[in-house]
């Protein structure tokens, strides 16, 4: 089994390694598509809550990922005031990002189906 699959299926899962870039991207894109516009800290909280604290996105991976996706043109950013009146950088999906999300979701479903098939066989 490839190393990145081990990392996902051994709990508690820490989504941090470079190998998991695709997965981390998927999580961020999906969160942004749900939240509309959000800052990094909000994304961490959102993933934490929605996954029932099963997935914890590490800040050290989150910000490089956000900046890389912005360079790719999947998300855009702007400075705004948060609900607690702090200046924060808000990210939101671009059209290209929405397309990327659809593709990544599809891909993920296939991976999961494939992995499950292998696991059931074993």
């Amino acid at each position: 089994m490839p190393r990145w699959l081990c990392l996902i299926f051994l709990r508690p899962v820490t989504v941090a390694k470079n190998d998991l870039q695709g997965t981390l991207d998927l999580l961020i894109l999906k969160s942004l598509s749900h939240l509309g516009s959000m800052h990094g800290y909000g994304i961490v909280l959102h993933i934490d809550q929605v996954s029932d604290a099963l997935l914890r996105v590490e800040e050290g991976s989150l910000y490089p990922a956000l900046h890389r996706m912005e360079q790719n043109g999947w998300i855009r950013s702007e400075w705004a005031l948060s609900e607690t009146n702090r200046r924060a950088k808000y990210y939101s999906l671009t059209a290209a990002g929405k397309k990327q999300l659809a593709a990544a979701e599809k891909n993920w479903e296939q991976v999961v189906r494939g992995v499950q098939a292998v696991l059931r066989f074993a």
Partner: protein
Amino acid sequence: MSAMKRLWALVKRSKLDHEIEDELQAHVQMCTDDNVAAGMTPEVAQRNARLRFGNPTVMKERVIERDAALGVEAIMRDIRYALRGFAKSPGFALIAVATLALGIGANTAIFQLLDAIRLQSLPIANPQELAEVKIVGGNRGFGINDGFYAQLTQPVWQEIRQHHDPFSGVFAWRNNDRLLGNPSDARRIHGLDVSGEFFSVMGIRPWQGRLLLPEDETPDCKTPRVVVSYPFWQAQMGGRDLAANSTLLIDGELAEVVGVTPPGFFGMAVGERFDVASPLCEPNPARRELFDRSVMGRLKPGWTLDRAFAYFSAVSPGIFDATAPTGYSAESIRHFKEYRLGAYPASGGVSALREQYDDSLSLLLAITGLVLLIACANLANLMLARASARQREMAVRTALGASRGRLLRQLLIESGVLAASGAFLGVIFAQGFSRFLVRSLSTEQWSVDLPISTDWRLLLFSAAVAVLTCIVFGTVPALRASNADPVAAMKTGDGRLAGNRERFSVQRIMVIAQISISMVLLVAALLFVRSFRNLMTLNPGMREHGIIIAHIGFSLSHISPDEEFKRQLVDEVRAIPGVNDAATTTNDPLMGGSWTHGIHVGSAEGSSKFTWVSPEYFQTMGIPLLTGRMFADTDTASSPRVAIVNQTFIRQFVGNDNPIGKTVRTLPEPNYPTTVLEIIGTIPDTKYNDIRGETPPMAFVPAAQFPLAAEGSWTSVMVWSDAAPSTIAEEIKRQIGKKHQNVIVQTVNFETRIHDGLLRERLMAILSGFFGVLAALLVMVGLYGVISYFVTLRRNEIGIRVALGATRWQVIALVMRDAGIMLLAGTIIGTALALVAGRSASSMLFGLKPYDPATLAIAIGLLAVIALLASWLPARRAAKLDPMAALRCE
């Protein structure tokens, strides 16, 4: 907007730092807030938030890396890395940049000249509207053609002046050299005669004073008012403000200077510069056979060149019917009336320089391009060698996780840095080189004035050349180096891959390409050098050395230069100590002038060149009489008309009969009525007006029988002397000046002037020769490098061969065979290329065909010598190899 901001942020790293810091700071703050809300004390809350965040500096760096990965910052870093690398091997960098600077510089300089001569427009507003009206196909030698740019006669110009629907305005102009100052020490200056509309239609505003207007035109052809050019004003009038009494003595008359043209305006001819502009002379009655002016106009809005062309074509019959000259045969007049006018683009003005050098410059651009290509091939080989030396570095970087694209980018940036520095230095070098070329285009009597500018077109050109060279020499080595297999590279002890077959072949192909290209360049160089030599050693059939042409002008002297006076003048010149002989002529040989009459000889008809000379002409010019008799003093205006003809004349009009006693009848022309001449002598063929040209039929007639009505105000005296030309020239001026008031004497050294006329050929020979030698040197260096490299790679093999008993000569032969095979392949391809390329140069060659077997043989021989020299040293080194040492290395 945000994209711009990001780009700016990438350039300003500090700004980027701040933004990321702010973002991360906000995150920690929000986390702390939440922790406090969950019941932690502020200190604990902050500690917890920071703990989760990890090392802030590392974090920031990682984020910046993402942002900058594709950005300017990373490229700057790669450039810095490349510069550090070059600083470590300065020899390589120096050679690479110098080669490129030379190559790109030469290309840029030639392009700069081409740009100045061909691509630039006249410095006026909307130059593309300017069109010239010309006879389609020219006037084919009819009438009198005065001036290189002259296209139309005065009556035709006046017709166009009346009817010019396509043009919002028209003007006529001509170049007309003037004499400045006192007749005794008059100096020739470049005059520009313009019709009154000239400056307003061209849209030129005065720098000072006013420019010429229609009311300045005078019917008596005097020039009471003139306008001077800015450079003339600066040099001759000290750039002082024009006063009411600013005058110049022009052609012996005082002329008031009314204005100065702006600095950029040089006249209508690119490569020349006018000094004084005066109103165009419109004599009444007009000379209808004198083609002396050029007519141009500005197209009205909505008129295209094609429509204007059609318009002038349609009005031509009316114009030529109304302006037909008299005194010609009916057939000549019929030809005249069949002329058609057309409109041609004139945005670039006119240029003799352009017509003369256009082909040469294009060819030189091709030559310098090929030299650059050879230089690129050399650099590519250097880079390949460097790449194999750096294989270990690449392997380490690959092993540490650098992607292939990352390495490729790094390597391409390295060659880009080389190309950019080469281009930068090249453009600087080109400034000097192109100016040097312009200076070499000038001769004693024809100074070339060309504004050389460094504009966007030039910079674009050099940038394109640099990018192209970068692609040519950088891509293959970069692809190869970035392809390194880290495991294999690390395994070999010396950090170098054992030479595999593929690398061999790329370098081989490079060398073969270099040899074949340099073959083309050598053939071109040899062709031009031999062609120039042919011209220089050509015997024109007359004396060149020791001849001085004295042009004697009477326009200011009130002397009527009849034959009696000229007779006396020649006798005076002959009496000067050191002068062997002297004679007058109506046409200076080999100086480009031409005089033709239609003739009938018995039943044969055609045309022949005519020159009226005094009896001493043939002795003076060293032309021997073959049969019959020379002219004598008894051949006068009242005696029967006689002629001496050349061999081409006899072949064309007489055939095998004895030419002596045959009669020649000339067709009438204004001032030259029909004449019946008897052939009294024959001379060998001599060159006529151009040393390159074929000899036409030529007839000489005694000067005493020249039609009186055709006498001009100038006469040419050919002077033969064994003394130093400059002293004789001074003596002639002094003697004539002493005896005759206000007679202008200007002298020309015949031999020098003929050689000046070969300037284009000389320049082509020098430049192509220079580039040929450069190409040969580059090939030698390239071949040497590659053969040495091969020898190093095959050290073990050679060691084994020597150990097994191969002799020194066998080893040398082994290495030289390698060079021999590349030479063979290179010369075969090169010969084919040279034959194809040679055709484009055929019009510039003299006495040679582009497929000249001797030239090809010499080029192949030269390349063989080069290959021998380049491979001899490595071969000897291989032969001296100690087999034990070579094998122990493994």
